[in-house]
Protein backbone atom coordinates (compact mmCIF):
# COMPACT_ATOMS: atom_id res chain seq x y z
CA UNK A 1 0.00 0.00 0.00
CA UNK A 2 1.57 3.28 -1.07
CA UNK A 3 0.98 6.06 1.42
CA UNK A 4 2.90 8.82 -0.25
CA UNK A 5 4.54 8.30 -3.63
CA UNK A 6 7.51 10.26 -2.40
CA UNK A 7 8.22 7.86 0.49
CA UNK A 8 11.35 5.79 0.18
CA UNK A 9 11.27 1.99 0.10
CA UNK A 10 13.47 0.70 2.90
CA UNK A 11 12.47 -2.96 3.08
CA UNK A 12 10.93 -5.31 0.52
CA UNK A 13 7.98 -7.51 1.53
CA UNK A 14 10.30 -10.55 1.59
CA UNK A 15 12.73 -8.79 3.90
CA UNK A 16 9.91 -7.76 6.20
CA UNK A 17 8.40 -11.23 6.31
CA UNK A 18 11.82 -12.72 7.03
CA UNK A 19 12.42 -10.22 9.83
CA UNK A 20 9.09 -10.97 11.51
CA UNK A 21 9.43 -14.73 11.23
CA UNK A 22 12.73 -14.42 13.07
CA UNK A 23 11.28 -11.85 15.47
CA UNK A 24 8.27 -13.93 16.44
CA UNK A 25 10.37 -17.06 16.86
CA UNK A 26 12.73 -15.07 19.05
CA UNK A 27 9.89 -13.88 21.29
CA UNK A 28 8.64 -17.46 21.73
CA UNK A 29 12.18 -18.66 22.42
CA UNK A 30 12.88 -15.90 24.93
CA UNK A 31 9.65 -16.56 26.82
CA UNK A 32 10.10 -20.32 27.02
CA UNK A 33 13.85 -20.08 27.57
CA UNK A 34 13.57 -17.63 30.47
CA UNK A 35 11.16 -20.07 32.09
CA UNK A 36 13.93 -22.68 32.30
CA UNK A 37 16.47 -20.12 33.45
CA UNK A 38 14.92 -18.64 36.57
CA UNK A 39 11.94 -19.92 38.59
CA UNK A 40 10.48 -16.40 38.60
CA UNK A 41 9.78 -16.87 34.89
CA UNK A 42 8.52 -20.46 35.13
CA UNK A 43 4.82 -19.46 34.80
CA UNK A 44 5.66 -18.41 31.21
CA UNK A 45 5.58 -22.12 30.37
CA UNK A 46 1.76 -21.93 30.63
CA UNK A 47 1.80 -19.89 27.41
CA UNK A 48 3.08 -23.02 25.72
CA UNK A 49 0.78 -25.54 27.38
CA UNK A 50 2.91 -26.30 30.43
CA UNK A 51 6.53 -27.06 31.29
CA UNK A 52 6.80 -30.24 29.28
CA UNK A 53 5.35 -28.65 26.14
CA UNK A 54 7.67 -25.68 26.52
CA UNK A 55 10.61 -28.09 26.83
CA UNK A 56 9.50 -30.01 23.72
CA UNK A 57 8.79 -26.94 21.57
CA UNK A 58 11.71 -24.65 22.49
CA UNK A 59 14.44 -26.48 20.53
CA UNK A 60 12.28 -26.94 17.43
CA UNK A 61 11.44 -23.23 17.41
CA UNK A 62 15.17 -22.68 17.83
CA UNK A 63 16.03 -24.69 14.72
CA UNK A 64 13.28 -22.87 12.83
CA UNK A 65 14.61 -19.48 13.90
CA UNK A 66 18.22 -20.43 13.12
CA UNK A 67 17.19 -21.31 9.56
CA UNK A 68 15.45 -17.98 8.97
CA UNK A 69 18.22 -16.09 10.77
CA UNK A 70 20.69 -17.50 8.25
CA UNK A 71 18.44 -16.30 5.40
CA UNK A 72 18.25 -12.88 6.99
CA UNK A 73 21.99 -12.83 7.48
CA UNK A 74 22.51 -13.55 3.77
CA UNK A 75 20.13 -10.73 2.88
CA UNK A 76 21.73 -8.09 5.05
CA UNK A 77 25.37 -8.85 5.83
CA UNK A 78 26.83 -6.85 2.96
CA UNK A 79 24.96 -3.75 4.10
CA UNK A 80 26.41 -4.16 7.58
CA UNK A 81 30.12 -4.18 6.83
CA UNK A 82 31.73 -1.64 9.14
CA UNK A 83 33.40 1.41 7.63
CA UNK A 84 35.53 4.21 9.00
CA UNK A 85 32.48 6.47 9.27
CA UNK A 86 30.71 3.83 11.34
CA UNK A 87 33.58 3.75 13.81
CA UNK A 88 33.44 7.54 14.00
CA UNK A 89 29.69 7.29 14.64
CA UNK A 90 30.26 4.74 17.38
CA UNK A 91 32.88 6.99 18.98
CA UNK A 92 30.25 9.69 19.33
CA UNK A 93 27.40 7.39 20.36
CA UNK A 94 27.26 9.23 23.70
CA UNK A 95 26.00 12.38 21.98
CA UNK A 96 23.42 10.37 20.08
CA UNK A 97 22.10 8.73 23.24
CA UNK A 98 22.00 12.17 24.81
CA UNK A 99 19.54 13.15 22.07
CA UNK A 100 21.82 15.38 20.06
CA UNK A 101 22.42 14.12 16.51
CA UNK A 102 23.67 17.38 14.99
CA UNK A 103 27.34 16.44 14.95
CA UNK A 104 26.90 12.79 13.99
CA UNK A 105 28.67 11.76 10.78
CA UNK A 106 26.55 11.06 7.73
CA UNK A 107 25.21 7.51 7.62
CA UNK A 108 24.34 5.11 4.84
CA UNK A 109 21.45 2.66 5.09
CA UNK A 110 22.65 1.62 8.53
CA UNK A 111 24.57 3.54 11.16
CA UNK A 112 27.45 2.17 13.21
CA UNK A 113 25.16 1.24 16.09
CA UNK A 114 22.83 -0.74 13.86
CA UNK A 115 25.78 -2.54 12.31
CA UNK A 116 27.23 -3.36 15.73
CA UNK A 117 23.79 -4.69 16.69
CA UNK A 118 23.69 -6.81 13.54
CA UNK A 119 27.03 -8.46 14.27
CA UNK A 120 26.36 -8.89 17.99
CA UNK A 121 23.05 -10.60 17.21
CA UNK A 122 24.74 -12.78 14.59
CA UNK A 123 27.28 -13.96 17.17
CA UNK A 124 24.47 -14.63 19.67
CA UNK A 125 22.46 -16.69 17.19
CA UNK A 126 25.50 -18.78 16.28
CA UNK A 127 26.38 -19.40 19.94
CA UNK A 128 22.78 -20.15 20.88
CA UNK A 129 22.29 -22.59 18.01
CA UNK A 130 25.48 -24.56 18.65
CA UNK A 131 25.09 -24.62 22.43
CA UNK A 132 21.39 -25.37 22.06
CA UNK A 133 22.17 -28.51 20.09
CA UNK A 134 24.62 -29.56 22.82
CA UNK A 135 21.96 -29.33 25.54
CA UNK A 136 19.10 -30.81 23.50
CA UNK A 137 18.75 -33.94 25.62
CA UNK A 138 15.84 -35.40 23.71
CA UNK A 139 17.97 -35.63 20.55
CA UNK A 140 21.63 -35.64 21.49
CA UNK A 141 23.87 -36.75 24.34
CA UNK A 142 27.37 -35.33 23.95
CA UNK A 143 30.00 -35.76 26.72
CA UNK A 144 28.86 -34.24 30.02
CA UNK A 145 31.62 -31.59 30.02
CA UNK A 146 30.35 -30.25 26.70
CA UNK A 147 26.77 -30.26 27.93
CA UNK A 148 27.72 -28.21 31.00
CA UNK A 149 29.74 -25.80 28.90
CA UNK A 150 26.86 -25.58 26.44
CA UNK A 151 24.41 -24.78 29.23
CA UNK A 152 26.51 -21.83 30.40
CA UNK A 153 27.12 -20.52 26.88
CA UNK A 154 23.41 -20.86 26.07
CA UNK A 155 22.39 -18.93 29.17
CA UNK A 156 24.96 -16.16 28.70
CA UNK A 157 24.29 -15.75 24.98
CA UNK A 158 20.53 -15.79 25.61
CA UNK A 159 20.68 -13.07 28.24
CA UNK A 160 22.95 -11.01 25.99
CA UNK A 161 20.60 -11.46 23.05
CA UNK A 162 17.48 -10.57 25.04
CA UNK A 163 19.21 -7.42 26.27
CA UNK A 164 20.32 -6.56 22.72
CA UNK A 165 16.78 -7.07 21.43
CA UNK A 166 15.45 -4.77 24.17
CA UNK A 167 17.85 -2.12 22.86
CA UNK A 168 16.90 -2.93 19.24
CA UNK A 169 13.18 -2.57 19.99
CA UNK A 170 13.70 0.53 22.08
CA UNK A 171 15.82 2.19 19.39
CA UNK A 172 12.97 1.63 16.94
CA UNK A 173 10.43 3.11 19.36
CA UNK A 174 12.70 6.00 20.29
CA UNK A 175 13.43 6.99 16.68
CA UNK A 176 10.01 8.08 15.48
CA UNK A 177 8.99 7.00 12.00
CA UNK A 178 11.16 3.88 12.08
CA UNK A 179 8.79 1.05 12.90
CA UNK A 180 6.71 1.63 9.75
CA UNK A 181 9.79 0.61 7.73
CA UNK A 182 9.39 -2.90 9.09
CA UNK A 183 5.56 -2.84 8.99
CA UNK A 184 4.93 -1.61 5.47
CA UNK A 185 8.35 -1.00 4.07
CA UNK A 186 8.63 2.76 3.59
CA UNK A 187 9.98 5.78 5.41
CA UNK A 188 9.50 9.47 4.76
CA UNK A 189 12.13 11.43 2.93
CA UNK A 190 12.61 13.68 5.92
CA UNK A 191 13.27 10.66 8.12
CA UNK A 192 15.85 9.31 5.71
CA UNK A 193 17.48 12.71 5.34
CA UNK A 194 17.84 13.14 9.08
CA UNK A 195 18.95 9.68 10.08
CA UNK A 196 20.64 8.18 7.02
CA UNK A 197 21.72 11.11 4.88
CA UNK A 198 24.05 9.13 2.61
CA UNK A 199 21.34 6.55 1.93
CA UNK A 200 18.89 9.40 1.29
CA UNK A 201 21.21 10.88 -1.31
CA UNK A 202 21.70 7.48 -2.91
CA UNK A 203 17.92 6.90 -3.11
CA UNK A 204 16.87 10.36 -4.24
CA UNK A 205 19.92 11.65 -6.02
CA UNK A 206 19.70 14.88 -4.01
Amino acid at each position, binding site marked *: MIRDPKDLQRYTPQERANHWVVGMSFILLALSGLAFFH*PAFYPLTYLFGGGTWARILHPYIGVFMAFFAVLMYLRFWRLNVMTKTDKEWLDRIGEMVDGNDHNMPEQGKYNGGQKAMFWALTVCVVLLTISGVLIWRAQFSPPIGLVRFGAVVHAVAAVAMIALIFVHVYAAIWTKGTIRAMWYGTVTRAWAR*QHHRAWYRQMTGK
Partner: protein
Amino acid sequence: MALQSLDIKQRSATTTPAPSVRKTMEVAKLIDVSACIGCKACQAACMEWNDIRDEVGINTGVYDNPVDLTAKSWTVMRFAEVEEKGRLEWLIRKDGCMHCADPGCLKACPAPGAIVQYANGIVDFHEENCIGCGYCITGCPFNVPRISKEDSKAYKCSLCSDRVAVGQAPACAKACPTGAIQYGSKEDMKDYAAKRIGDLKERGFDKAGLYDPAGVGGTHVMYVLHHADRPELYNGLPSNPGISPLVSLWKGFAKPLASLALGAVALGSLFHYVMKGPNEVSKESEREAEKEESQ
Protein backbone atom coordinates in the same frame (compact mmCIF):
# COMPACT_ATOMS: atom_id res chain seq x y z
CA MET B 1 3.68 -32.87 49.02
CA ALA B 2 3.94 -36.46 48.00
CA LEU B 3 4.86 -37.87 51.38
CA GLN B 4 3.39 -35.75 54.11
CA SER B 5 5.31 -37.36 56.92
CA LEU B 6 8.58 -36.31 55.27
CA ASP B 7 9.38 -32.64 55.59
CA ILE B 8 11.13 -30.86 52.80
CA LYS B 9 14.45 -29.10 53.06
CA GLN B 10 14.93 -27.99 49.48
CA ARG B 11 12.69 -27.95 46.44
CA SER B 12 13.85 -27.45 42.86
CA ALA B 13 13.25 -24.07 41.17
CA THR B 14 11.75 -22.63 44.34
CA THR B 15 13.07 -19.48 45.96
CA THR B 16 10.98 -19.41 49.12
CA PRO B 17 11.29 -21.75 52.14
CA ALA B 18 9.84 -25.24 51.76
CA PRO B 19 7.54 -26.70 54.45
CA SER B 20 9.97 -27.54 57.20
CA VAL B 21 8.50 -27.16 60.68
CA ARG B 22 9.49 -30.65 61.74
CA LYS B 23 13.07 -31.59 62.44
CA THR B 24 13.68 -35.03 61.06
CA MET B 25 16.60 -37.28 61.79
CA GLU B 26 19.13 -37.53 58.96
CA VAL B 27 19.18 -41.04 57.55
CA ALA B 28 21.79 -42.84 55.50
CA LYS B 29 22.45 -46.06 53.70
CA LEU B 30 25.86 -47.55 54.25
CA ILE B 31 27.24 -49.86 51.58
CA ASP B 32 30.10 -51.93 52.89
CA VAL B 33 31.87 -52.86 49.67
CA SER B 34 34.15 -55.24 51.57
CA ALA B 35 31.17 -57.38 52.61
CA CYS B 36 29.45 -57.46 49.21
CA ILE B 37 29.36 -60.80 47.39
CA GLY B 38 27.77 -59.46 44.20
CA CYS B 39 24.58 -61.54 44.45
CA LYS B 40 22.40 -58.74 43.09
CA ALA B 41 19.66 -59.35 45.66
CA CYS B 42 19.59 -55.57 46.06
CA GLN B 43 18.87 -55.12 42.33
CA ALA B 44 16.08 -57.68 42.51
CA ALA B 45 14.61 -56.15 45.67
CA CYS B 46 14.73 -52.69 44.08
CA MET B 47 12.79 -53.73 41.01
CA GLU B 48 10.35 -55.70 43.09
CA TRP B 49 9.54 -53.01 45.63
CA ASN B 50 9.45 -50.17 43.10
CA ASP B 51 7.60 -52.41 40.64
CA ILE B 52 9.82 -51.69 37.66
CA ARG B 53 11.00 -54.29 35.18
CA ASP B 54 13.79 -53.35 32.85
CA GLU B 55 14.02 -55.07 29.51
CA VAL B 56 16.17 -58.17 29.52
CA GLY B 57 19.56 -56.98 28.29
CA ILE B 58 22.54 -58.75 26.82
CA ASN B 59 25.61 -60.24 28.44
CA THR B 60 28.62 -58.10 27.65
CA GLY B 61 31.18 -60.55 28.99
CA VAL B 62 31.24 -59.23 32.54
CA TYR B 63 28.96 -59.69 35.50
CA ASP B 64 27.48 -56.19 35.19
CA ASN B 65 23.87 -56.75 34.24
CA PRO B 66 22.23 -54.51 33.28
CA VAL B 67 25.40 -52.78 32.10
CA ASP B 68 24.27 -49.35 33.20
CA LEU B 69 21.69 -47.52 35.25
CA THR B 70 18.49 -46.89 33.31
CA ALA B 71 15.11 -45.30 33.96
CA LYS B 72 14.04 -48.79 35.07
CA SER B 73 17.20 -49.95 36.82
CA TRP B 74 17.82 -47.61 39.70
CA THR B 75 20.68 -49.58 41.16
CA VAL B 76 23.36 -51.60 39.40
CA MET B 77 26.26 -53.65 40.73
CA ARG B 78 29.50 -52.70 39.07
CA PHE B 79 32.23 -55.33 39.09
CA ALA B 80 35.86 -54.28 38.87
CA GLU B 81 38.81 -56.68 38.71
CA VAL B 82 41.83 -54.99 40.22
CA GLU B 83 45.28 -56.32 40.99
CA GLU B 84 46.64 -55.16 44.31
CA LYS B 85 50.00 -56.37 45.69
CA GLY B 86 50.02 -59.26 43.23
CA ARG B 87 46.56 -60.44 44.27
CA LEU B 88 43.31 -60.19 42.38
CA GLU B 89 40.66 -58.14 44.10
CA TRP B 90 37.10 -58.22 42.95
CA LEU B 91 35.68 -54.86 43.87
CA ILE B 92 31.94 -54.82 43.62
CA ARG B 93 30.17 -51.51 44.04
CA LYS B 94 26.44 -51.05 44.19
CA ASP B 95 25.94 -47.91 42.09
CA GLY B 96 22.97 -45.58 42.31
CA CYS B 97 21.95 -42.20 43.63
CA MET B 98 24.21 -40.95 46.42
CA HIS B 99 21.58 -38.59 47.88
CA CYS B 100 24.01 -35.68 48.20
CA ALA B 101 23.50 -33.07 50.91
CA ASP B 102 24.20 -30.51 48.16
CA PRO B 103 22.44 -32.13 45.19
CA GLY B 104 23.58 -30.97 41.74
CA CYS B 105 20.41 -32.35 40.13
CA LEU B 106 18.18 -30.21 42.34
CA LYS B 107 20.31 -27.15 41.74
CA ALA B 108 20.06 -27.54 37.97
CA CYS B 109 16.36 -28.51 37.78
CA PRO B 110 14.15 -25.75 36.29
CA ALA B 111 10.79 -27.34 37.16
CA PRO B 112 9.37 -26.33 40.55
CA GLY B 113 8.97 -29.36 42.80
CA ALA B 114 10.27 -31.93 40.31
CA ILE B 115 13.16 -32.63 42.69
CA VAL B 116 12.91 -32.34 46.45
CA GLN B 117 15.31 -33.00 49.26
CA TYR B 118 13.60 -34.19 52.40
CA ALA B 119 14.79 -33.05 55.78
CA ASN B 120 16.08 -36.58 56.37
CA GLY B 121 18.49 -36.17 53.46
CA ILE B 122 16.72 -38.20 50.76
CA VAL B 123 16.72 -36.57 47.33
CA ASP B 124 13.57 -37.59 45.51
CA PHE B 125 12.32 -37.04 41.96
CA HIS B 126 8.63 -36.23 41.61
CA GLU B 127 8.10 -37.27 38.03
CA GLU B 128 4.66 -35.64 37.78
CA ASN B 129 6.43 -32.25 37.86
CA CYS B 130 9.34 -33.32 35.64
CA ILE B 131 9.44 -31.71 32.20
CA GLY B 132 12.14 -34.01 30.80
CA CYS B 133 14.82 -31.43 30.05
CA GLY B 134 17.65 -33.54 31.48
CA TYR B 135 19.23 -30.68 33.43
CA CYS B 136 19.45 -33.06 36.43
CA ILE B 137 21.88 -35.20 34.41
CA THR B 138 23.89 -32.07 33.62
CA GLY B 139 24.02 -31.18 37.32
CA CYS B 140 24.74 -34.62 38.81
CA PRO B 141 28.40 -35.23 39.77
CA PHE B 142 27.81 -39.02 39.83
CA ASN B 143 26.07 -39.54 36.47
CA VAL B 144 22.99 -41.11 38.02
CA PRO B 145 19.65 -39.76 36.67
CA ARG B 146 18.29 -41.31 33.48
CA ILE B 147 15.55 -40.03 31.17
CA SER B 148 13.01 -42.68 30.24
CA LYS B 149 12.55 -43.28 26.54
CA GLU B 150 8.89 -44.07 27.18
CA ASP B 151 7.74 -40.94 28.99
CA SER B 152 10.78 -38.60 28.84
CA LYS B 153 10.81 -38.21 32.63
CA ALA B 154 13.92 -38.54 34.79
CA TYR B 155 14.23 -41.47 37.18
CA LYS B 156 16.67 -42.61 39.85
CA CYS B 157 16.87 -44.33 43.24
CA SER B 158 14.42 -42.80 45.73
CA LEU B 159 16.17 -44.43 48.70
CA CYS B 160 12.72 -46.02 49.02
CA SER B 161 11.37 -42.76 50.39
CA ASP B 162 7.92 -44.38 50.55
CA ARG B 163 9.27 -47.11 52.84
CA VAL B 164 11.38 -44.72 54.87
CA ALA B 165 8.34 -42.47 55.37
CA VAL B 166 6.65 -45.28 57.30
CA GLY B 167 9.72 -46.31 59.25
CA GLN B 168 10.93 -49.12 57.00
CA ALA B 169 14.43 -49.66 55.65
CA PRO B 170 15.04 -49.38 51.89
CA ALA B 171 14.25 -52.57 49.97
CA CYS B 172 17.89 -53.20 49.00
CA ALA B 173 19.04 -52.97 52.62
CA LYS B 174 16.24 -55.33 53.67
CA ALA B 175 17.23 -57.90 51.04
CA CYS B 176 21.03 -57.87 51.41
CA PRO B 177 22.03 -61.33 52.73
CA THR B 178 25.48 -60.36 54.02
CA GLY B 179 24.64 -57.13 55.80
CA ALA B 180 26.70 -55.19 53.27
CA ILE B 181 23.85 -52.69 53.00
CA GLN B 182 23.00 -51.07 56.32
CA TYR B 183 20.41 -48.43 56.95
CA GLY B 184 19.82 -46.10 59.89
CA SER B 185 20.55 -42.61 61.10
CA LYS B 186 23.54 -41.01 59.46
CA GLU B 187 25.30 -40.88 62.85
CA ASP B 188 24.73 -44.57 63.52
CA MET B 189 25.93 -45.45 60.04
CA LYS B 190 29.14 -43.52 60.60
CA ASP B 191 29.70 -45.38 63.89
CA TYR B 192 29.04 -48.70 62.20
CA ALA B 193 31.41 -47.79 59.39
CA ALA B 194 34.14 -46.88 61.88
CA LYS B 195 33.94 -50.40 63.32
CA ARG B 196 34.10 -52.01 59.90
CA ILE B 197 37.04 -49.79 58.90
CA GLY B 198 38.85 -50.81 62.09
CA ASP B 199 38.35 -54.49 61.14
CA LEU B 200 39.61 -53.90 57.61
CA LYS B 201 42.68 -52.09 58.86
CA GLU B 202 43.49 -55.03 61.14
CA ARG B 203 43.22 -57.30 58.10
CA GLY B 204 45.87 -55.29 56.26
CA PHE B 205 43.76 -52.77 54.35
CA ASP B 206 45.50 -49.82 55.96
CA LYS B 207 43.86 -47.33 53.58
CA ALA B 208 40.34 -48.48 54.37
CA GLY B 209 37.92 -45.66 55.00
CA LEU B 210 34.50 -44.10 54.64
CA TYR B 211 33.31 -42.49 51.41
CA ASP B 212 31.19 -39.52 52.44
CA PRO B 213 32.59 -36.86 50.09
CA ALA B 214 32.69 -33.33 51.49
CA GLY B 215 32.59 -31.79 48.02
CA VAL B 216 28.84 -32.45 47.84
CA GLY B 217 28.30 -31.71 51.54
CA GLY B 218 28.44 -35.41 52.38
CA THR B 219 26.08 -38.06 51.03
CA HIS B 220 23.21 -40.10 52.39
CA VAL B 221 24.51 -43.18 50.67
CA MET B 222 28.01 -43.88 51.95
CA TYR B 223 30.54 -46.56 51.12
CA VAL B 224 33.05 -48.42 53.22
CA LEU B 225 35.99 -48.87 50.86
CA HIS B 226 39.09 -51.01 51.39
CA HIS B 227 41.00 -48.48 49.27
CA ALA B 228 39.44 -45.21 50.36
CA ASP B 229 42.52 -43.37 49.04
CA ARG B 230 41.67 -44.50 45.48
CA PRO B 231 37.89 -44.57 45.01
CA GLU B 232 38.43 -44.58 41.20
CA LEU B 233 39.32 -48.28 41.51
CA TYR B 234 35.67 -48.94 42.14
CA ASN B 235 34.47 -48.42 38.57
CA GLY B 236 35.38 -44.76 38.53
CA LEU B 237 33.83 -43.57 41.77
CA PRO B 238 34.99 -39.92 41.75
CA SER B 239 37.63 -39.15 44.39
CA ASN B 240 36.53 -35.57 44.90
CA PRO B 241 33.02 -35.10 43.54
CA GLY B 242 31.35 -31.72 43.56
CA ILE B 243 28.89 -29.69 41.57
CA SER B 244 30.74 -28.56 38.44
CA PRO B 245 31.75 -24.87 38.61
CA LEU B 246 29.99 -24.47 35.25
CA VAL B 247 26.72 -25.69 36.77
CA SER B 248 27.20 -23.40 39.78
CA LEU B 249 27.79 -20.47 37.46
CA TRP B 250 24.77 -21.32 35.30
CA LYS B 251 22.32 -22.02 38.11
CA GLY B 252 24.04 -19.98 40.80
CA PHE B 253 24.74 -16.28 40.77
CA ALA B 254 24.17 -15.90 37.01
CA LYS B 255 20.43 -16.39 37.55
CA PRO B 256 19.59 -13.35 39.71
CA LEU B 257 22.34 -11.24 38.14
CA ALA B 258 21.13 -11.79 34.59
CA SER B 259 17.50 -11.25 35.57
CA LEU B 260 18.44 -7.96 37.21
CA ALA B 261 20.50 -6.93 34.18
CA LEU B 262 17.55 -7.53 31.84
CA GLY B 263 15.28 -5.57 34.13
CA ALA B 264 17.81 -2.73 34.23
CA VAL B 265 18.03 -2.56 30.41
CA ALA B 266 14.23 -2.47 30.11
CA LEU B 267 13.83 0.18 32.81
CA GLY B 268 16.83 2.10 31.48
CA SER B 269 15.15 2.32 28.08
CA LEU B 270 11.90 3.55 29.59
CA PHE B 271 13.61 6.27 31.62
CA HIS B 272 15.78 7.25 28.67
CA TYR B 273 12.60 7.95 26.71
CA VAL B 274 11.05 9.84 29.58
CA MET B 275 14.13 11.95 30.26
CA LYS B 276 15.53 12.56 26.77
CA GLY B 277 12.34 12.44 24.74
CA PRO B 278 11.85 10.71 21.41
CA ASN B 279 14.25 11.07 18.52
CA GLU B 280 11.84 12.77 16.15
CA VAL B 281 12.37 14.03 12.65
CA SER B 282 13.10 17.72 13.15
CA LYS B 283 11.10 20.49 11.50
CA GLU B 284 14.29 21.46 9.78
CA SER B 285 14.73 18.04 8.19
CA GLU B 286 11.12 18.14 7.00
CA ARG B 287 11.55 21.57 5.44
CA GLU B 288 14.83 20.63 3.79
CA ALA B 289 13.49 17.36 2.45
CA GLU B 290 10.44 19.12 1.03
CA LYS B 291 12.61 21.77 -0.56
CA GLU B 292 14.82 19.13 -2.17
CA GLU B 293 11.80 17.21 -3.41
CA SER B 294 10.45 20.21 -5.25
CA GLN B 295 13.76 20.94 -6.93
